[in-house]
């Protein structure tokens, strides 16, 4: 979550002010969790149509560099906006409630117990098929947590609870990745 392109943009000097608008402003969309993914994709492509370095390939190195900064900034915003977890974290941050994942790892006991159960199931799985059920279950849990994020951020605007939920989602997300890695290994056998 602490990754950013900010120092590339700083190097742009006078551009920094224009590039530094928040992702929602850059994409000209409402600052909220609920987003239409298809509309977001279209918007991203339309912005890249205007700013991509390929559109300026016949206009010199300076033009290329500026276009590249814009293009990088648009890609950065798109990555953050299209990923529900990162979008939620970003909204919390903009609302003055940063996630601070490194410093704050306290999680409710029942959540941790479930995580441990999942881990055991993952370790015991020997075939790709035996992992599918676990995969489904984890994805469902993730979807429920995202729905909760939406209501906490967009409806009740309870950002301290939203931060908790985002932290839990980060655990779930990491676990989904671990399942994917395991599936890769099992497929490769």
């Amino acid at each position, binding site marked *: 979550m602490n990754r*950013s*392109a900010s120092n590339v943009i700083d190097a742009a000097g006078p551009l920094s002010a224009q590039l530094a608008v928040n992702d929602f402003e850059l994409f000209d969309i409402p600052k909220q969790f609920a987003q239409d993914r298809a509309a977001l994709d*279209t918007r991203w492509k339309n912005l890249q149509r205007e*700013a991509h370095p390929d559109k300026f390939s016949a206009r010199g190195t*300076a033009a290329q*560099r*500026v*276009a590249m900064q814009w293009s990088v900034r648009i890609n950065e915003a*798109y990555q953050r906006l299209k990923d529900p977890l990162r979008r939620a974290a970003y909204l919390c941050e903009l609302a003055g409630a940063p996630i601070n994942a490194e410093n704050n790892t306290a999680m409710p006991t029942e959540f941790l117990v479930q995580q441990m159960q999942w881990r055991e199931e993952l370790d015991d799985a020997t075939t790709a098929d035996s992992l599918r059920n676990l995969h489904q279950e984890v994805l469902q849990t993730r979807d429920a947590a995202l729905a909760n994020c939406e209501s906490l951020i967009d409806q009740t605007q309870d950002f301290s609870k939203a931060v908790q939920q985002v932290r839990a989602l980060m655990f779930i997300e990491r676990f989904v990745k671990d399942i994917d890695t395991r599936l890769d290994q099992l497929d490769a056998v």
Partner: protein
Amino acid sequence: MALLQISEPGQAPDPHQRRIAVGIDLGTTHSLVASVRNSVAECLPDAQGQVILPSAVRYLDNDGRQIGSDALRAQAEDPQNTLVSVKRFMGRGLKDIANADKLPYQFVDKPGMLAIQTRAGEKSPVEVSAEILATLRFRAEDTFNDDLYGAVITVPAYFDDAQRQATKDAAQLAGLNVLRLINEPTAAAIAYGLDQSSEGVYAIYDLGGGTFDISILRLTRGVFEVLSTGGDSALGGDDYDRVLVEFVQSTTQCVVVTPSDKAQVMVAARACKEALSSQDSMQFEVTLASGAVACKVTRAQFEEACKPLTQRTLNAVRKALRDASLQKQDIQGVVMVGGSTRMPHIQTAVAELLGCEPLTNLNPDEVVALGAAIQANQLAGNNPDGELLLLDVIPLSLGIETMGGLVERIVPRNQTIPTAMAQDFTTYQDGQTALALHVVQGERDLVADCRSLARFELRGIPPMVAGAARIRVTFTVDADGLLSVAALEQHSGVQANITVKPSYGLSDDQIATMLQDSFKTAEQDIKTRALVEARVDADRMWLATQSALQADGDLLSAQERIHIESLMATTLNSKKLEDAAAVEAATEALAKGTEAFAAQRMNRGIQNALSGQHIESI
């Protein structure tokens, strides 16, 4: 060399000012050059009418060389001086080459990239590739009777940074202006996409002579968005040949020892494999030092023997689907690219896995070059209303080494380029004033299992307690997929930058030397040519500045304007001199002096475009 660009947006160069731009497919087994003529992309033939140039270079006595079919014919008789499939060695050390002992070459192990000993001396894969690229460049220049403006060169999507850099170096060595490196599957998609105006999600399965790529793309209104990519940059038709040789060896117990033996079995295996695509059995025949060998191979036997190879490609397809978060039913169609996809069992296996009949209506050998030509035409500014936009990804994660030989990933694979990502690091010891940064590429967690791209140091950090320094490391990947890295200590402002080249690429000095060497043998009068080119460049730059001043002069202060006008006058005067270097210097001064102005104009242009966008998109 100054890079000059003129056209205002929307303003097409007039027809005789059309820039000659080509697409080049630099393949493992063969290479092609294509260009858009009369709105149609076509491969350019040589004087004999052949479009395919075998990627083979033979070094002769007295600095001579044969390139293409002539070289290939000599493969068995002169194996150590006839280099084929060098693409597999690009950006690679000797330890990276599996089965090096099966090849007839005298390898020289060098830090960074291996070289091959020939009668003309040591040759790096970059130099050999440059010979092939230069041959295609001359073919294009002869076809159009004009100089090339630039070229788009294709690389396997799965090529890492070292391999891409080596390819770009080779193009530079061949005197080509590289407009862009693009990925082969993406190029193939362009050729198909524009022909059929298809929309939706497509898989491109590209099995070439030495590399395998799978890319999943979404096509919408001229935008080619790569969702994920995967593959193996050391798996291709050559490996199927090798499996066939192993099969024959284990059946007949024949021994392959001499360089000539090794080259002959390679040639025989390829012929046998190709025949098995259209017939059920084939006689594998070869005369080795130890005597003649004949062995009947059936298609079924061959397919069984190479099953593990095909299986590896299918695993990569599954992984690419997972990376794109898609199921196989989301795939609308699959495009087959590369000569190796002519093998019937490959087509069947892919059709079975993805549940759709592969598209093979374009020639799988030509499709990559054709797509590259379409992109080159647009990048050269010949098609200002073109809708084509490539949003490609990096194939392999980029990261740096942290304590304990572990990799901290900074840019994950399948990230859309261009991209810039940063991560903060800190010092390990009290009073530490320098930091060694080791840049690596790959998916594994241990540095030892990833490819080392570069090492550099950040020095002059003020002494602080361990953990107090804030060092922000930023990775920037440009639209060619090439990486540069910057490190900045945030309290002190100490910084270090690196364009990733040292451990695997050639230094600029090495390239300059090679260029000089290659010019020594060139027939043209380099000096005259350089002067003409320098004057043309100066004209372009002067005109571009002139029209920029007319369009956006209001962005400049009076003083800035005077400075630019004096640089313009100097450029104009320098053209009267018979000195290419002086003209270049003046042009470059003008280019440098107008950089800030160009940046401001661009920024104004993009902002206008983006705000215009809002209205359009509602």
